[in-house]
């Protein structure tokens, strides 16, 4: 992760978080370890909880706690109550000035069960689309008490993290879980946002015929012009052999769809929460459920000769059945987040409560640093070009 390595070195010298405490709620993976160590190197005291009860890699959690002065509250496979308890513990331990969230559960907890800590909080970053949507709803109701930078929502991150990272790793998760050959299969991708677009492109790259479902006409047109077949889910359901949800919405695959699916259809979710596939409806339709027929594959026997295969219990398949985004992707995502957090630390009180974009120069700085680590050089505009860009007088 060359970007984080470069920032580690810079922050160790500049110490932008000196005297500050940071609470983070993130998938506990090797990439996250790099981020929290870099924050620590920049002078912060760091508490860390998991942002998903299934994605914690216990060895990483142990190493951070033992060797790297991070207060970790996470264990793989805890139940829902344990999951929220860990977040509360991390918040209580940190008494945070800054927060990093992934999905909004930490910020939500901070505004509800841990509201006493709110006055101390200067601001934070949110890593994922689902979290940002939630935060915007909070802000719209006036409930958000501090400024949050939507770190997921930069041009660079959408491109690299959602499209490339989710695209590659969601397909990776499906392959690891099922070992199915994608070539020749019909793959239905629900949602053609940045992530769904990536999943659709990578599935096509494997030789699948890809059908896209959408509710947004702009994205549907985009999918269509890129050569994907666009259908309503109710029409796609009987055609698909592999289904991947990437919408950020709820009940995208519901009982109506499940009842018409083909025998052996594979159901996977690449969205953040486990609500995109109506797992409860699936359980209701099934006469029998065979858990873990392969790791992360549950077979739902519908009693009419058809069996549907649900991956990762409907949770985010790229993290549960594979290893999440490859390090290069998380390098950029976390690099932007670290830069944004350092900027927040140096500009406290300048932003009102609410959701804010990452300043464009931070996005550009991160992209530039990544290019530099790969040895890629780019052009610099000339003075004449800069002047032309600023001018309205020069035409054809």
């Amino acid at each position: 992760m060359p970007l984080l390595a470069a920032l580690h070195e810079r922050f160790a010298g500049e110490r932008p978080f000196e005297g500050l405490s940071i609470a983070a709620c993130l998938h506990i993976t090797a990439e996250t370890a790099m981020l929290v160590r870099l924050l620590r190197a920049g002078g912060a005291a760091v508490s860390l909880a998991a942002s998903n009860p299934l994605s914690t890699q216990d060895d990483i959690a142990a190493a951070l706690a033992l060797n790297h002065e991070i207060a970790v509250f996470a264990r793989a496979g805890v139940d829902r109550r344990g999951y929220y308890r860990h977040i509360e513990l991390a918040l209580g331990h940190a008494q945070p000035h800054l927060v990093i969230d992934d999905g909004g559960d930490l910020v939500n907890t901070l505004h509800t069960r841990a509201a006493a800590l709110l006055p101390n909080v200067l601001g934070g970053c949110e890593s994922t689309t689902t979290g940002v949507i939630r935060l915007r709803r909070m802000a719209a109701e006036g409930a958000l008490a501090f400024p949050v930078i939507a770190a997921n929502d930069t041009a660079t991150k959408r491109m690299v993290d959602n499209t490339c990272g989710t695209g590659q790793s969601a397909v990776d998760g499906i392959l690891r879980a099922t070992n199915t050959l994608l070539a020749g299969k019909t793959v239905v991708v629900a949602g053609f946002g940045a992530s769904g677009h990536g999943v659709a492109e990578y599935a096509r790259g494997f030789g699948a015929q890809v059908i896209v479902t959408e509710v947004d006409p702009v994205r549907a047109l985009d999918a269509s012009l890129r050569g994907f077949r666009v259908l309503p889910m109710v029409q796609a359901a009987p055609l698909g052999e592999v289904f991947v949800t990437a919408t950020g919405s709820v009940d995208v695959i519901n009982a109506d769809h499940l009842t018409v699916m083909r025998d052996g259809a594979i159901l996977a979710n690449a969205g953040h929460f486990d609500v995109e596939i109506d797992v409860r409806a699936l359980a209701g339709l099934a006469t029998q459920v065979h858990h873990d027929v392969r790791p992360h594959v549950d077979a739902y026997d519908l009693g009419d000769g058809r069996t549907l295969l649900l991956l990762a219990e409907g949770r985010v398949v790229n993290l549960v059945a594979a290893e999440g985004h490859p390090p290069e992707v998380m390098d950029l995502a976390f690099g932007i987040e670290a830069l944004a957090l350092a900027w927040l630390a140096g500009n406290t009180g300048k932003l009102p409560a609410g959701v804010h974009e990452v300043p464009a120069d931070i996005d550009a700085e991160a992209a530039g640093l990544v290019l530099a680590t790969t040895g890629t050089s780019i052009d610099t505009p000339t003075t004449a070009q800069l002047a032309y860009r600023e001018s309205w007088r020069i035409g054809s």
Partner: protein
Amino acid sequence: MSADQPPYLVADLSLAAFGRKEIQLAEHEMPGLMAVREEYASSQPLRGARITGSLHMTIQTAVLIETLTALGAQVRWASCNIFSTQDHAAAAVAVGPDGTPDDPKGIPVFAWKGESLEEYWHCTELALTWPGGDGPNMILDDGGDATLFVHKGAEYEQAGGVPSPSEDDPEEWVIILDRLRNSLADHPGKWTRATGSIKGVTEETTTGVHRLYEMAKAGTLLFPAINVNDSVTKSKFDNKYGCRHSLIDGIKRGTDVLIGGKVALVCGYGDVGKGCAESLRGQGARVIVTEVDPICALQAAMDGYQVATLEDVVSTVDIFVTATGNRDVITADHMSRMKHQAIVGNIGHFDNEIDMAGLAKWQGVRRVIIKPQVDEWTFPDGHGIIVLSEGRLLNLGNATGHPSFVMSNSFTNQVIAQVELFTKTAEYPIGVYTLPKHLDEKVARLHLDALGVRLSQLTKEQADYIGVSVDGPYKPEHYRY
């Protein structure tokens, strides 16, 4: 040659300057031919060769012709199709790089766009008739017409005369017989002498190769032949990469329709169909494939295409392309059930893949010419379809066929095959041959630099390990590229 025979026959010599400019552009895109010119500049392996060429008289062919002359050959040329001549190319070849329209110094070329069949066979005979009345000693053929003409001439000389045509003979055969009858009367024994001195023919295309194998099998082939068509660097490039390029070009020039988001149907998933499907997908179309061969059908499915029958999808497709090599693939009944303004085109060799005759006979159908090679056919129910190039090869009818780079591969094979047959005559007893693999590899090698390709080199140990020579050939004969 009788004194009244013309030195060349082209449409308009004043087009030569335009043709020369296009030839210069094409030379840059034909690195194989230019490399061959350089390689053989001093050794002049075709010195003494009198080559008669019968091949589409285009700009790319002009670069081929001038490569043959650069290697020392004398050349006479006719086109192998009545419509395919580019008149500016023919003019530039007749004028030559050093001549002017008032003082042409090029080679004898007999070709113009829109010949009648009589004119076509006259041109072929002129190209085969050398000063002094001799024949050529080499033939470069595309479709086999020049080879057919000299073989039939010799056959009828042996038989003592040209047979009378029977009533159901095609018009073209009657014309050939008439021409040979006159030739035998004026120049007895000419074609027997010619076939005796011809060292061999190099054949460009499937149809001509088929004829050659038939003649070899029947024992009537009079000189050796090299089948250029089946060189990998010819057939793959023509069929896959050439059509991948020119299909889209033809559709766009014909209709200017946005391909992204459309549903395109490709009938046939051979090399041509593979190239077509890939380019349509690359433009953002959703591509459906039809196939009769289970292997090709499975290939298409593995490549991510929907494979369906024409009947099942005919009413949902926006663009139809036939690439099967078979007849009656799209019938008038299919066309009657297509979407309004569906585009229908063919990229297979012959014009029978789409049943145009059946369409014309459909009760109440109306044809409106939108522009040359683009017709709208309207059915009585009011829906119309757009047919490209009247069902003939749309990449040639609506666009300009294969691009120079593709033809450079084909034609470099031609030149190398000519050098083989002319300089190693003893090694090729009468029969039909393909170019040895090392020469196929050489053709590819000559095109790498232009693309900036850096080739890796086998070590001696690696070469031994897989049992090949360090310098190739790298693959066994049966290898499928």
